[in-house]
C-alpha cells in the first residue's frame, strides 16, 4: 500500500528556525510522496500581517518565510519534497513572488509555486456585513476598527493547489489540520464523503500542527516525564496509508520522544468536545481512537470517526484593542517577600492616587501568583518563604497609551521611591490586537488557486 510522509517544520511563528533540516534529511530517504508543512499563523498574527500589507502591497506574508525556507528550499526541490505552509498570511500571492525570488537567489531552477486566496472576508464583504454576524466567542467588536477578518478554509482548495503540480503551496488562513489533510486528499484521492478517512487525516494534521509538542516537547517534567536530548528535539513526521492508517514518528538522528503519553496529550490539546471537533472538512470524533507503541518512537493512531461538516465556516475578526502596560521589579535575599509586598502596596496606592480608572493587577511573582486572579484571592492558600527572590509585576490594559505607560512607570519609580534593594526593572508598553470569532455561510467564501509565475 502506498504511504504518504508528512513532516512539520514549525508549530508557531517563532518556532525553532532550523527544525525542518533533519526532517528534510529523513524524508529524502523515504519511498512515496513526501510533504513538509509549516504552521506559523496564530489568530493575532494575521492582524499584524494585514497592517503590513496595507502599508506595502508586496508585504503582509509571514516574516518567517525568509527565516525558514532558505534552509530547505534547494533540498526539497532536489528530492521532490513539496512544501505546504500558511506563511502566505495576509498576502499569499506576495509570498509566492518572494519564494520565486528566494529560489533565484539560491539557484533553485524550475520551481513551481501556487497560492490559495479567498480567506480574506474584507475582500468580498463590507465591514458592516462582517459586523453583522453574531459573535460566538471573544471580544465585542463595538466601534473598534477592524484590522482583519479571515475565514478558516478547509483542505479542498489546498489540495487543488497541489494538483497544479506546485512544489510550494502558500496559503493564508486555513485550519491548521488542512495543511496535512490536503496532501492526503491529493495523493490518496479521498472523497469528501469518506468521512472516517478525512477524520484520520484531520487527526494527523491536529497531531502535527504544533510541531515538537507531539515528539516530547511541552511535555518534560523531570523525574516524572523525562525526555532524552530535549535540546535536540526532533520534529514530527507522520506516515499515512491510503486507508488512513497513521503512524506518528520523528526525524532521524534527533532527540525527543514519541510515546503513547506524548501522543495522547497532543490529541486532546486545544480540543473541547472530543466527539465533535469541528472543521470545514469533517467533524472529528476521537472517542474510539486507540494509541499503540509499535516501535521505538513509533506510535500508531487509529479509530478516528468522521461526521459531515457544518454548513458554516469559522472566521476570526481582529480589532485594535488598546494598550497593555507592564512593569516588573525584583527583591532578593532576607525579608524579600515583605519588601515585595510593600512595593506592591505602594504601586496599588499610587495608581489610585493618580486616578487610573482601568483595572490594575499588581502581583508578586514567586508566590504562584500566575495561578491567581487579579485580586490575589488564592494567595492565602500558599505560604512561600519570607527570604528568597520575588518579582513584583504590575499590568494594565487601557484604551489610552498614556495610562498604560503611567502604570508601568509607577514600577520604575520604585527604584528610588520604593522598599530597600529593588532591582532589575523591565517595562513593556505594547499595542494589543483583540479577536472575535464569527460563523459565516460557507457559500459566501470562495477560495481561488493561482499558479504564480516567476517575475
Amino acid at each position, binding site marked *: 500500500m502506498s504511504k504518504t510522509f508528512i513532516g512539520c517544520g514549525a508549530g508557531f511563528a517563532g518556532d525553532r528556525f532550523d527544525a525542518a533540516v533533519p526532517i528534510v534529511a529523513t524524508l529524502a530517504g523515504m519511498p512515496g510522496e513526501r510533504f513538509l508543512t509549516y504552521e506559523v499563523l496564530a489568530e493575532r498574527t494575521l492582524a499584524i500581517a494585514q497592517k503590513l500589507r496595507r502599508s506595502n502591497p508586496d508585504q503582509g506574508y509571514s516574516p518567517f518565510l525568509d527565516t525558514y525556507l532558505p534552509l530547505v528550499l534547494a533540498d526539497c526541490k532536489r528530492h521532490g519534497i513539496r512544501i505546504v505552509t500558511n506563511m502566505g498570511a495576509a498576502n499569499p500571492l506576495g509570498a509566492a513572488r518572494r519564494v520565486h525570488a528566494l529560489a533565484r537567489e539560491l539557484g533553485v531552477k524550475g520551481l513551481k509555486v501556487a497560492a490559495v486566496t479567498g480567506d480574506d472576508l474584507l475582500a468580498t464583504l463590507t465591514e458592516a456585513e462582517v459586523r453583522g454576524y453574531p459573535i460566538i466567542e*471573544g471580544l465585542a467588536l463595538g466601534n473598534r476598527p477592524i484590522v482583519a477578518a479571515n475565514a478558516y478554509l478547509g483542505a479542498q482548495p489546498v489540495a487543488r493547489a497541489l494538483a497544479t503540480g506546485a512544489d510550494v503551496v502558500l496559503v493564508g488562513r486555513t485550519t491548521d489540520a488542512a495543511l496535512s489533510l490536503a496532501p492526503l486528499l491529493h495523493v490518496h484521492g479521498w472523497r469528501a464523503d469518506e468521512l472516517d478517512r478525512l477524520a484520520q487525516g484531520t487527526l494527523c494534521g491536529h497531531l502535527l500542527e504544533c510541531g515538537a509538542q507531539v515528539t516530547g516537547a511541552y511535555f518534560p517534567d523531570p523525574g516524572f516525564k523525562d525526555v532524552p536530548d530535549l535540546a535536540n528535539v526532533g520534529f514530527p513526521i507522520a506516515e499515512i496509508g491510503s486507508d488512513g492508517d497513521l503512524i506518528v514518528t520523528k526525524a532521524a538522528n534527533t532527540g525527543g520522544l514519541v510515546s503513547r503519553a506524548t501522543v495522547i*496529550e*497532543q490529541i*486532546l*490539546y486545544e480540543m*473541547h468536545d472530543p466527539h465533535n471537533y469541528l472543521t470545514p472538512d469533517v467533524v472529528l470524533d476521537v472517542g474510539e481512537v486507540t494509541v499503540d507503541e509499535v516501535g521505538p518512537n513509533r506510535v500508531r493512531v487509529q479509530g478516528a470517526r468522521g461526521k459531515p461538516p457544518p454548513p458554516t465556516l469559522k472566521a476570526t475578526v481582529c480589532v485594535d484593542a488598546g494598550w497593555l502596560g507592564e512593569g516588573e521589579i525584583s527583591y532578593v535575599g532576607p525579608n524579600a517577600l515583605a519588601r515585595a509586598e510593600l512595593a506592591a502596596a505602594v504601586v496599588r496606592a499610587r495608581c489610585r492616587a493618580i486616578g487610573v480608572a482601568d483595572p490594575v493587577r499588581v502581583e508578586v511573582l514567586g508566590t504562584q501568583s500566575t495561578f*491567581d*486572579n487579579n485580586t490575589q484571592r488564592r494567595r492565602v492558600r500558599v505560604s512561600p518563604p519570607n527570604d528568597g527572590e520575588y518579582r513584583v509585576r504590575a*499590568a494594565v490594559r487601557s484604551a489610552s497609551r498614556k495610562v498604560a505607560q503611567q502604570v508601568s512607570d509607577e514600577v520604575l519609580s520604585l527604584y528610588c521611591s520604593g522598599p530597600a534593594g529593588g532591582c532589575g526593572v523591565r517595562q513593556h508598553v505594547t499595542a494589543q490586537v483583540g479577536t472575535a470569532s464569527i460563523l459565516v455561510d460557507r457559500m459566501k467564501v470562495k477560495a481561488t488557486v493561482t499558479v504564480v509565475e516567476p517575475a
Partner: protein
Amino acid sequence: MKTIEVPLHAVAHARAGDKGNRSNISVIPYLPATFEHLVEQVTEERILAAFAHKGATRVKRYVLPKLPAMNFVIDDALEGGVNASLGLDGHGKSLSFLVLGEVTVRVPVECVPAGSPYLEGRGTRG
C-alpha cells in the same frame, strides 16, 4: 488494599490549551489501572472549585476510556483569555499544573509509578 493520598501529579499528567476565555485540560493516568479511580474522584465539581477564584462558571468533563484520559472544559477560566487577561499566562498554559497540584486523590499504592518520590512521602521536594 493499602491506599495513599497524593496530589494528582503523582499519578497523572496533563496538558492545557485554550480557546477564548475557555480552558481545556486533559488528565491522563500514568498507569491504565489508575483511570477508574480518577473517574470516580476527579469530578466536575472539584475542578470547578479549583478555578473558583478565577471566576470559572462551568466545567464539562469528557471521559475517554479507550485512551484512557479525561478532558475538562472550563468556561470563564482565563480572566478573559489573551484578549483581556492581566496575568502573565493569558493562554492558561500553566493551569495543567494547577490541577495536578491542587486536586488530591486516594488511590491504591500500586497506582503510583515505581520509583516515584511521592511513594517515599517526599513529593517533589527531592
